[in-house]
């Protein structure tokens, strides 16, 4: 099945989200759709999946114009969308999730689970997906859950699959396996739209690429004819540098020193086991690891959000194991939380309010029991300029900013005061390329100013790019340490450690 989008335009209020977009989606082809957050990718795909009606332009399926009045129409036409955020019922099995809404029935309208299982397994085998049919979703790793989403659309006989940022939640190994499935689908004649902002993925998997910027197609073609730099420039509209260009580190004294820190969570499970690590002044240390191996707990132990069961957290020679979040904050520990929306900001507050979210009590903005909002607003405006937070006004709700601007706002808040240690957790998750570059530069500048920087990221590239030293976490332990200062550490070795290869060696 081939789909042609012809001159699609969609406007929301005064914003032109899509302008005269034409795309060819062909069977047996992977079309990479590249664009920053807010470039109009999601709007375009929502038009294709029937959620939005275009203001003008046509959708043609095999040459025939069609009109989608709702998602049902588009599913019936054979278009399947795999969302970035999974839409699965955690306590249902794989088969139950796959058939939800289109349950096969036998005699007297009873659910025919056996037939369903057979069908699901047939699809499973055909594309080499290797998904167990009867396991509950909540017991499956994220990578497999994603395959269940793909099974769902295939079960509804989709010929066109739209994959929205599918690799955002996967480890490097899972990405490889996932690409295998995408190729199998393509070879079986499916048309695939692969939405991403990761350039190397486009080059690796896409047969064709189209680049969106500010609602328009600004270029495209065969990916192999472009370098990553070309694609990035097309996407952002200006040259983007990839290597952060960080000079050699000149590490000083230990700023952060964890001494055999063990952390036990509320359900008495050991989350961190005798972690011993340090971050020195003037150095960036990266924590690599597949999500859920204790990184979140490590950050909580350092920032004081969770008490440790044993061991000591030392900051600049002082024992801060018993200090509160605020005390540590005041000592100069900055924290960029891993989920800005959930814990790093208040969406309903203005940019100015968000800028003082954790310093409002400080003498820099407070006078006695009162907050000096004029001063806070002026400081916020200055910080917005310095950190390139693009908002028309500091009085607008932060929730209305794009992900990249929200993140820059959080980074600005954390770095714009005297800090000695920055704990940056997933500092560029869900952030556009331009903002990633900016945030990376800020972190390096922070290091060069003599501060200690700890970066926790599930993006191995980010860790390799920024870190002077790398620790690998696996199942709550630090299982390996790599030097990354003069020459880049061995990617393969880190990958193996992330998968648990060094576990026995370190334990």
């Amino acid at each position, binding site marked *: 099945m081939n789909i042609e989008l012809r001159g699609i335009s969609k406007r929301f209020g005064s914003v032109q989200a899509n302008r005269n977009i034409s795309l060819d989606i062909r069977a047996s082809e992977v079309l990479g759709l590249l664009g920053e957050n807010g470039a109009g990718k999601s*709007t375009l795909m929502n038009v294709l999946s029937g*959620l939005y009606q275009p203001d003008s332009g046509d959708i043609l399926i095999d040459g025939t114009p069609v009109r989608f009045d709702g998602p049902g129409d588009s599913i019936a036409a054979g278009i399947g969308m795999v969302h970035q955020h999974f839409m699965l019922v955690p306590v249902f099995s794989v088969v139950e999730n796959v058939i939800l809404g289109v349950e096969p029935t036998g005699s007297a309208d009873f659910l025919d689970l056996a037939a369903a299982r057979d069908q699901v397994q047939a699809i499973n085998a055909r594309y080499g997906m290797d998904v167990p049919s009867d396991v509950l979703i909540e017991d499956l790793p994220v990578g497999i859950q994603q395959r269940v989403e793909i099974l769902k659309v295939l079960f509804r006989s989709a010929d066109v699959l739209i994959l929205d940022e599918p690799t955002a939640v996967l480890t490097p190994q899972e990405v490889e396996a996932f690409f295998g499935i995408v190729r199998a689908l393509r070879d079986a004649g499916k048309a695939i739209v692969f939405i991403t902002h990761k350039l190397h993925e486009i080059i690796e998997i896409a047969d064709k690429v189209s680049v969106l910027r500010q609602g328009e197609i600004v270029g495209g073609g065969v990916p192999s004819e472009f370098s990553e730099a070309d694609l990035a420039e097309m996407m952002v509209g200006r040259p983007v540098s990839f290597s952060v260009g960080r000079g050699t580190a000149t590490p000083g004294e230990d700023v952060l020193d964890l001494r055999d820190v063990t952390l036990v969570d509320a359900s008495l499970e050991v989350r961190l086991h005798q972690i011993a690590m340090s971050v020195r002044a003037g150095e960036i240390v990266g924590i690599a690891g597949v999500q859920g191996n204790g990184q979140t707990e490590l950050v909580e132990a350092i920032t*004081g959000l969770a008490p440790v069961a044993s061991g000591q957290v030392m900051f600049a020679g002082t024992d801060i194991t018993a200090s*509160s979040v605020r005390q540590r904050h005041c000592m100069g520990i900055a924290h960029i939380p891993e989920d800005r929306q959930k814990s790093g900001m208040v969406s309903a507050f203005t940019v100015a309010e968000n800028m003082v979210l954790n310093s409002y009590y400080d003498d820099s903005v407070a006078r006695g029991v009162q907050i000096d909002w004029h001063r806070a*607003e002026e400081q916020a405006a200055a910080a917005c300029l310095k950190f390139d937070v693009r*908002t028309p006004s500091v009085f607008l709700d932060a929730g209305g900013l794009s992900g990249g601007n929200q993140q820059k706002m959080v980074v600005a808040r954390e770095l714009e005061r005297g800090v000695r240690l920055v704990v940056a957790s997933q500092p560029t998750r869900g952030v556009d390329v331009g903002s990633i570059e900016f945030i990376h530069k800020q972190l390096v500048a922070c290091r060069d100013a003599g501060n200690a920087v700890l970066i926790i990221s599930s993006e191995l590239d980010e860790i390799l790019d920024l870190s002077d030293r790398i620790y690998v976490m696996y199942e709550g332990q630090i299982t390996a340490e790599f030097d990354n200062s003069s020459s880049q550490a061995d990617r393969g070795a880190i990958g193996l450690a992330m998968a648990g290869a060094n576990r026995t060696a370190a334990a």
Partner: protein
Amino acid sequence: MTRSSDTHGSPRNDGNQHNGSSHDGGNAVDSLRALLAPTIDTRGNLREIILIPLAAVFMALLIGALIMMATSVEPHIILRSFVAMADGSVGSLNAISETLTASIPLVLAGLGIGLAFRAGLFNIGAEGQMVVGGLMAAVVSFSVTGLPMALHLPLVLVSGLLVGGLYAAIAGFLRAATGAHEVISTIMLNLISIRLLDYLLRQPFIQKEGRSDPISKAVLETAELPRLLSFIDPNLRLHFGLFLMLGAVILIYWLLYRSKLGFAFRISGENPDAARYAGIRAGLTIVIAMAIAGGLAGLAGAAQVTGVLGRATPGFTAGIGFDAIAVALLGRSHPVGILLAGVLFGALEAGGRQMQVDAGVSIDMISIIQALIIIFVAAPLLVKRIMPFLFADRPKEDADHG
């Protein structure tokens, strides 16, 4: 359904990105000025904040009329009842005095509920906090003797405030220490306070001498809130509580939007996770917010006892603590909104009494209208759907070159 759930691609995000490039060009001073200039967006919000309650009141009155018609009340009676309502609420000096008098406890307790709500707490217990605060005020007002008014009255009011605050702090403490939800615990504390009142009113040190029914001794003259308009007519009941109410509005506004504590309340209310990450101690914040909320309700009870009733009787709070929830909701938990909503409810109360006298329509109709107002305010989309012309956007100048 019409918006994508992820962070990019939703119309609003796109909008800010495009508009947001404003500080690319120009010099830094201009850019700073632009960032600090008041925004147009807030004007649209303000219009909605004012229009929705007004439309809600209008539609509630309309439905009230329809209900009366359905129960075969003569049209001219309906008309007369509305005239009486207007007359009884704003038609004379006495009517205005009654309206304001009725609004004092509503606004005070409503401020407490609104403040708690801003901090993410649903304080259903204003009624109970009024009961204990009012009762305490009554006890102090007749058992402490020999003080001049300048000392006695403040003592009475403060004791009502403190006891109401402590009573609410119990619910706050239970929430903070054990996770017991404040909705449940404040409802239970309401029940306890009402029975406690009945019980204590029969105790010899409280019960009026020579009475067998539960009624407290009378408030001493030195503890009475002075009437404000007695120089015109001694029957005008408006009392000094009016200034307590206005003072509380200003104080709570300052607390929420200017003080450090209020900012911590608002962070906790909007995003408890972000509050935790910002180093705000959740438990302490909950207890303090509940205590202030209860203090305001306690003050409302004290003002009612010392300004209007002159004694404590069973059920002296008359459900004001529950009406105050509606007032806080209608006022969108904003101090000024609560003031306006409280005065509106006071007017309905005073007007309703007149309606009953003049037109013979039951005062229950007022409760129905109040409830309808709340339903409409709680469902702004419904109001917009019914009266789209009120909210139609004027065409924007920049619509063609977005």
